[in-house]
């Protein structure tokens, strides 16, 4: 018995890659069915392409390491969940800085370079193409932080991201010097004002009242000039969840 077109359309919308014999026969049963099938295939190709996100390059290594280091993975996860609690325990402007990183970076300098190479250019590109309203306060509130209006007003893109000691925040600022990256690290202590240079980038570390930040720009942008703004504008407040 041949399939009704309405039933065929329902199946195309629900399971277009079905290998059911009656469905496959119906696909080729008339020009009308063939056209509908071709259109559904075209949409399905786009859908699959859209869903095919690129997995992190280090994911296979992270998974393969689990059997040999299960305790450390648990520790890492706890660090992520309780990053806020950890941040509260870190003395602001601590004289003795600790470079012991939980996530495989030897130093905060390595982390900054590695992180920026990973998605810094992509975030800058996103800020260039798609300036949109972002809820800076809501994102920072998750970390018990707040931004002054002067800072919040120039944030083009914001997202959470990994940092050496748990989850943090990655922002792109639209400044008079051009687009500049700022990464907030809630649980990491840094030497205030220290410069990091990698590739063609210049970065400056900023010790905050809670956690720290790094400002990353091109060598010509003189990002050190933004140190004062970040230190004064990214402060505890806003509550945390």
């Amino acid at each position: 018995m041949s399939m009704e077109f309405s039933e065929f359309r329902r199946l195309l919308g629900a399971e277009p890659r079905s290998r059911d014999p009656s469905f496959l026969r119906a696909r080729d049963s008339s020009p009308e069915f063939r056209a509908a099938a071709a259109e559904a295939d075209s949409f399905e190709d786009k859908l699959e392409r859209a869903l095919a996100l690129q997995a992190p390059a280090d994911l296979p290594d992270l998974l393969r390491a689990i059997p040999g280091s299960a305790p450390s993975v648990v520790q890492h996860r706890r660090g992520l969940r309780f990053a806020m609690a950890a941040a509260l325990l870190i003395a602001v402007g601590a004289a003795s800085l600790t470079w012991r990183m939980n996530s495989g970076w030897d130093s905060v300098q390595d982390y900054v370079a590695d992180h920026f190479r990973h998605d810094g250019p992509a975030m800058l590109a996103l800020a260039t193409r798609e300036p949109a309203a972002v809820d800076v306060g809501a994102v920072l509130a998750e970390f018990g932080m707040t931004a002054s209006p002067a800072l919040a007003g120039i944030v083009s893109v914001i997202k959470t991201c990994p940092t050496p000691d748990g989850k943090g925040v990655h922002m792109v600022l639209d400044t008079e010097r051009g687009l500049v990256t700022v990464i907030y690290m809630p649980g990491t202590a840094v030497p205030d004002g220290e410069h990091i240079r990698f590739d063609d980038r210049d970065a400056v570390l900023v010790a905050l009242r809670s956690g720290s930040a790094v400002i990353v720009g091109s060598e010509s942008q003189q990002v050190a000039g933004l140190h004062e703004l970040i230190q004064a504008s990214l402060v505890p407040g806003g509550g945390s969840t």
Partner: protein
Amino acid sequence: MSSEASRLAKFNRLASAYGTDLYRFAMWLCGNDALAKDVVQETYLRAWKALDQLQDEAAAKGWLLTIVRREYARTFERKVPLFTDVDTVVLTEDSELEPDDRTEVRLLRRHIMGLAPKYREPLLLQTVMGFSCEEIAMELGISKSAVMTQLFRAREQLKSKLQDDGMADNVHGIF
């Protein structure tokens, strides 16, 4: 091969076979790269600890998926991330696309993230994980008919939104 070596080999096969798909699934659920990675790591950690319970490796995909969904629900259900990383995660891959296709794919991604969970999740299970409607019904605990309706409506909504975006030339009106 010793039992421990055999166990390790089994684990590595599961990591290679399903790690990427599970990351994608988690990423589309929570919209956040760091959290998705964390969910997948935790899933495999639990899988490693409970590996002996998996008697039939052919059932591994469903087994792992159940752990991912449980882990996601346990950890992030009440804490939906406020910002999606989806665009940034895929940017490098997208650079190979033609500009028009890139725009359409980016719009489609945004609309997928905007789907209600009851439509998005069956779509992810089918398209990312390769589950049949019967398997989705079993995983979600609903009827196959309900799954088919949700899948149909998910695609219908995505096509409609693309048309609203002015992508009508590339979207056809079969639904």
